[in-house]
């Protein structure tokens, strides 16, 4: 499958590229050029400088693609440009080129903002969106609504993967604790491989949101939808961080 990756040079990008490189032909794009090491390692794939806020650039980058993965995110004053208009440009490009499969990403606040934090447990990705008023969360939420609008009016299937906290395997130590929404980057990257492989007719609707996190013994946030539909099976045991230190 020809896959356009937007924002491929951010935190998660290199992990996703590594997970997909063996099975797909990638067009890796970002406003920030990839390092020469990355270009060397994945030289059989295409690299392109793309500013997601530029509709012509996104449309050009999407030409000939079968799927789009959007990893772009900005938290500063440019948040609306990248997180909202970037989604609009992406979806418009998908319409133009007849691309049916789109994977969008964002923080868990996209759906479950600060007011949801007061709920004790079983917070899942299918609740009414309530991002709150931080520019990052709200602009991401608006971007996701744009994706939803296009999925309802065009033959495009959007999967939205939401994350919260990334930890590397060596950081998963007893007693370190943390928000009950942790995943390692390698496990997070794996879900993109699953999302590109799943038959579109196996998605319950043309716009589905998934929480992507490792096991969460508290049950505060749920990853069961990603497991059930995508076959997500995190390998790294993040539950260690909530275990007692004296054992």
């Amino acid at each position, binding site marked *: 499958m020809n896959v356009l990756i937007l924002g491929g040079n951010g935190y998660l990008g290199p992990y996703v590229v590594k997970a997909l490189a063996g099975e797909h032909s990638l067009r890796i794009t970002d406003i920030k050029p990839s390092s020469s090491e990355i270009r060397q390692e994945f030289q059989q794939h295409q690299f392109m400088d793309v500013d997601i806020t530029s509709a012509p650039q996104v449309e050009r980058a999407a030409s000939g693609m079968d799927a789009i993965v959007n990893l772009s995110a900005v938290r500063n*004053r440019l948040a*609306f440009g990248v997180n909202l208009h970037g989604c609009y440009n992406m979806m418009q490009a998908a319409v133009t080129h007849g691309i049916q499969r789109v994977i969008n990403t964002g923080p868990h606040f996209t759906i479950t903002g600060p007011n949801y934090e007061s709920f004790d447990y079983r917070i899942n990705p299918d609740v009414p969106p309530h991002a709150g008023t931080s520019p990052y969360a709200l602009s991401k939420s608006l971007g996701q609504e*744009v994706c939803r609008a296009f999925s309802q009016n065009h033959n495009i299937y959007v999967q939205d993967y939401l994350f919260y906290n990334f930890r590397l395997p060596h950081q998963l130590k007893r007693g370190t604790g943390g928000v009950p929404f942790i995943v390692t980057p390698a496990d997070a990257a794996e879900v993109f491989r699953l999302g590109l492989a799943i038959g579109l007719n196996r998605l319950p609707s043309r716009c589905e949101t998934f929480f992507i996190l490792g096991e969460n013994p508290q049950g505060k946030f749920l990853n069961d939808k990603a497991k059930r539909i995508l076959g997500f099976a995190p390998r790294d045991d993040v539950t260690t961080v909530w275990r007692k230190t004296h054992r």
Partner: protein
Amino acid sequence: MKRRNFLQAAGVIGATGSGALAGENPPGGETSQAPETRQNQPGQKRVLVTSADSPLGQAVAAALGGRYRVHLTSSLDVPTAQPFMRSDLGHDESTNALVQGTDAIVHIATPPPDADQYGQIDHRARCTYNLLMAAAEERIETVVYLSSLEMFKGYDEDYEVTEDWQPLLSSQPAALADYLGEFTCREFAHESRLRVVVLRLGTVVREDEVQGKPFDPLWVEQRDVVQAIASTLHVSLDDTELAGRRWTILHIGSGSPDARFTSQRAAELIGYQPQFNWE
């Protein structure tokens, strides 16, 4: 009765319910009210009206001028006798300065005339965000946001669609932008940072402009829209009825029995009495 007295005093409806409307005065021109009612009185609340360059913005400014200290803003320069500050509603201190000392904002949110797809969405989403963030920081009491009933046109016409129904999303920039603006407002209201009243309008027309044309069930006369805005401000600022509500949506259509959407809730909550029914 209280609301009706107010509406009559403000010139929004006549004593018989069908008299001259303040909103029909030419932009920036004189109203039919007595001059003394046009002068600002001590203790009058201050209302900021955005999109002052738009015909609706100018009609709203003219109608509210007697009761409130009206200040105007727009991304374009507007010749007006009322206080005016040009603003792009950016993410900076100038937007805070714009709203400081204001009791309520009427955010008409009409994109600039030359706005492209990007501009339409940007104006409704980012600029609304910046305005509401400034309003929350400056502890503004009420924001009235003007949206559209277009997003409900997709429902079967046989349904009695009310304010509780889910919008049907469009990927067309203008309709999508309206929805994104509402979405932004809802977040501020649900975080209890502002009281927001969304007025979803039908297709705003002037009676003289549509004379002789086949009736469109989505039409709402501009003067009825002005009435709805004035009534909302009255109930929000001068009455207690909406004080406990952080988030209110009202549908504003014509008085025609063939109107596409009911305005019943607006009648109940703000005393909305549309004067135009094209019968």
